[in-house]
C-alpha cells in the first residue's frame, strides 16, 4: 500500500489542479483543456485495447462517430438529456464493439491494422448513404449547445469516472487476462484464458470509451455531428495519442491526450512553423521522435524519472 502512496498523491494533485483551473483560465483556454479531456477518454479506451490487450486499432474514430451521432440524433429527435445520451453512447458502442470484436478475432497484427483502417474510412461515409436519418454531408445538429464550462465539467467528470473504471477493470482478473493475451496468446490459452471472450470484451470496453469521447466531441463542436469531423485523421490522432502516451500505462494517458489536444494549437502560434501545414510537420516529427527515443512513450519516461529519483 505504501508503494501506491506517491501515485495516489499525484492523482489527487492532478484532480485538484483540474478543479482549480476553470477559475483561473479564460473561456478559450477552458475549451482547450476540455478538449484534452475529450481526447483523454478516447486515448484511455484505446490504451485498454492496444496497450493492455495488444490488439491494434486504427478505427477508433469510427466508434467516436457512432457515439457522437447517438448524442446528436437523440438530442435532435427526442431532446434527450445530454448526459443520458452519453450513457447511451457508452452502451451502444459497447455492443457494436463486441460485435466488431468477433470478426477481429481472426485477425492480428498488420491484418487487424488494415481491417480497422477500413472501418475508420467506411463508417463516416454511412451518413452520406442514409442522409435522411443521419443528415448527409451537413451532419446532425443537437437540439442545444453547451457552454465551455459545462463541457469542461462533463469531459473531466467522465474522464475521472472512466479512469477509475479502467483501473478497477485492469487491476483484477480481467486485466491479468488482457495482459496475458497481449504477451502471448498461446501461453494465455494454455493457462485457461478464453481468448474469444477477452478479446471481444477488450474491443467492447474500448469502443464504449470511444463512444463517450465521441459524444463529448460532438458537444465540443457546437453540437454538430458531421462526417468530416470523424475522418481517418481523427482515428490516426487517437492511435498516435495512445502510442505517445505509452502503451500499457494509465499514467501516460494524460500527457498523450494533452499532446494530441494541444500540440496543433500550440505549434500554430509559433512564428516560423505557424502555417497550417507546419503543425502537421511538427506533429508527425514529434510522433516519430517519441517512438524512436522513448520506447515506453511518456509513461516510460515518467517511470525512468522515478527510478532516477530513487537511485
Amino acid at each position, binding site marked *: 500500500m505504501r508503494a501506491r502512496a506517491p501515485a495516489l498523491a499525484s492523482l489527487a494533485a492532478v484532480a485538484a489542479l483540474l478543479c482549480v483551473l476553470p477559475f483561473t483560465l479564460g473561456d478559450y483556454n477552458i475549451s482547450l483543456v476540455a478538449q484534452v479531456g475529450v481526447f483523454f477518454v478516447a486515448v484511455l479506451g484505446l490504451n485498454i485495447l492496444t496497450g493492455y490487450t495488444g490488439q491494434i486499432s486504427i478505427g477508433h474514430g469510427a466508434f467516436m462517430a457512432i457515439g457522437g451521432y447517438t448524442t446528436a440524433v437523440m438530442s435532435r429527435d427526442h431532446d434527450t438529456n445530454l448526459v443520458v445520451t452519453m450513457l447511451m453512447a457508452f452502451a451502444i458502442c459497447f455492443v457494436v464493439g463486441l460485435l466488431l470484436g468477433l470478426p477481429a478475432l*481472426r*485477425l492480428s497484427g498488420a491484418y487487424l491494422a488494415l481491417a480497422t483502417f*477500413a472501418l475508420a*474510412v467506411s463508417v463516416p461515409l454511412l451518413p452520406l448513404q442514409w442522409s435522411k436519418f443521419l443528415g448527409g454531408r451537413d451532419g446532425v445538429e443537437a437540439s442545444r449547445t453547451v457552454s465551455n464550462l459545462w463541457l469542461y465539467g462533463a469531459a473531466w467528470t467522465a474522464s475521472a469516472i472512466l479512469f477509475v473504471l479502467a483501473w478497477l477493470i485492469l487491476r483484477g482478473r480481467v486485466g491479468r487476462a488482457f495482459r496475458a493475451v497481449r504477451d502471448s496468446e498461446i501461453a494465455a490459452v494454455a493457462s485457461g484464458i478464453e481468448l474469444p471472450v477477452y478479446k471481444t470484451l477488450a474491443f467492447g470496453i474500448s469502443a464504449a470509451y470511444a463512444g463517450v469521447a465521441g459524444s463529448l466531441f460532438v458537444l465540443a463542436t457546437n453540437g454538430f455531428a458531421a462526417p468530416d469531423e470523424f475522418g481517418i485523421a481523427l482515428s490516426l490522432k487517437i*492511435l*498516435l495519442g495512445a502510442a505517445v502516451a505509452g502503451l500499457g500505462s494509465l499514467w501516460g494517458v494524460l500527457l498523450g491526450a494533452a499532446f494530441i489536444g494541444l500540440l496543433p494549437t500550440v505549434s500554430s502560434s509559433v512564428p516560423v512553423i505557424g502555417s497550417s501545414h507546419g503543425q502537421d510537420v511538427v506533429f*508527425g516529427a514529434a*510522433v516519430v521522435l517519441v517512438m524512436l527515443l522513448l*520506447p515506453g512513450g511518456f509513461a516510460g519516461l515518467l517511470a525512468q524519472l522515478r527510478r532516477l529519483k530513487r537511485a
Partner: protein
Amino acid sequence: MTQSAAATSATRAVGGALERLPPPTSLLLVAGAAGLLVGSLRSEVFAQLTVQGLALGAVYGSLALALVLVYRATRVVNFAQGELAMATTYIAYQLIKWGLSYWEAFFATLAIAFVVGAALEVVLIRPVLHRSVIAAVIVTVGLFILIDGVVNWVWGGDFKFMPSPFGTKIYHVGGVSISRLYPGMFVVVIVSVLLVWALFRFTKLGLGMRAAALRPAESALVGVRVEWMLAIGWGLAAVLGAVAGLVAQPSQFVLQPTLMQPILVYAFAAAVLGGLESPAGAVVGGLAIGISLNLVVQYVPAITTELQTPLAFAVILVVLLLKPSGLFGHREVRRV
C-alpha cells in the same frame, strides 16, 4: 547463361508460379479474363473502361507490390507508402522545373526514391522493429502525417502541372478510341514490375533478399547481410511506389498532395485480395480492383463514384474475414 537458356528458365519460373496457384483462383482468373474479352468485343464502352481499368489497376498493383515487398521484408504494413510515392512525384516535378527532360527526371527520381526508402528503413524502422509490429506501424502512421505536412509546406497545396510523358495522341482500334495515356501507363508499370521480379528471380542479390525475408537467422548464418537486404527491399518498394506516383499523376491531370491517398486505399485492397505475402497476387489484385471498380461504377446504378472507396474497403473486410491469406496466399502455419 545463354539467351535461350535464360528464356527457358523464365518460362519455367512462370509455369511454376501458375502450378502453385490454388485451382479455384486460376479458374477465377481465366473466367474473369474471358468475361472481359467477350464484353470488350460486344461493347465499345466496355472495352474503353476495361483498358482504362487495366491502366489504373496497374498503378494500384505497383503500389500494392511495394506494400507486399515491405511486408515480406519486415512484417510491417507501411501506411506511408502512398505519401512517399506522392513526395517523390513532387521531386520529379521540381527536377523538371529545374530543366531536366521528363525521362531524365523520371530516372533521377527513381534513384532518389531508392535512397530515401532504404534510409527510412535504416533510420526509423529498424530501431523500433525489434520492439513490436505495432510500434513500427505507428511510426509509419507518423511518417504519413510528416511527409504530407512537409510536401504541403515546401510546395503548397495548390494544383501543379507536369508535362504528360505520353502525349495526347488517341488510338482508334476497331471503333474504340483509346488515349495513348492508358496503354502508356500500363506498359511503364508492367515493365518496372517485371524488372523487379527478374531482380528477385535471377540475381544473387534477389536470392539474398528472398532468403533474408523468409529465414533471417539462417540466411545470416550462410553469409547473407540480412540488414542490408531489408533496407534494399524498402528501397525497391519506394522505387515501385515512385513509378506508381509518376504514372498516376498524368491520369489525374494535376499534381496535388492528395494524389496517392485514394490510390493507397485501392492498393491496400489489392494487396489483401492477392494476399499480403504474394507479389504476383498484389499485381493481379491491383488489375482486378482497377477493372472491376471502373466497370461497377458504370454498370451498377446504386454504386456512385463516392461509393468506390467504401467498396474497396468492403473488399478488404470480406477477404480478410473469408480468406485472410488472399487469393494467391498460403495459409500461415506457425509452430509453437
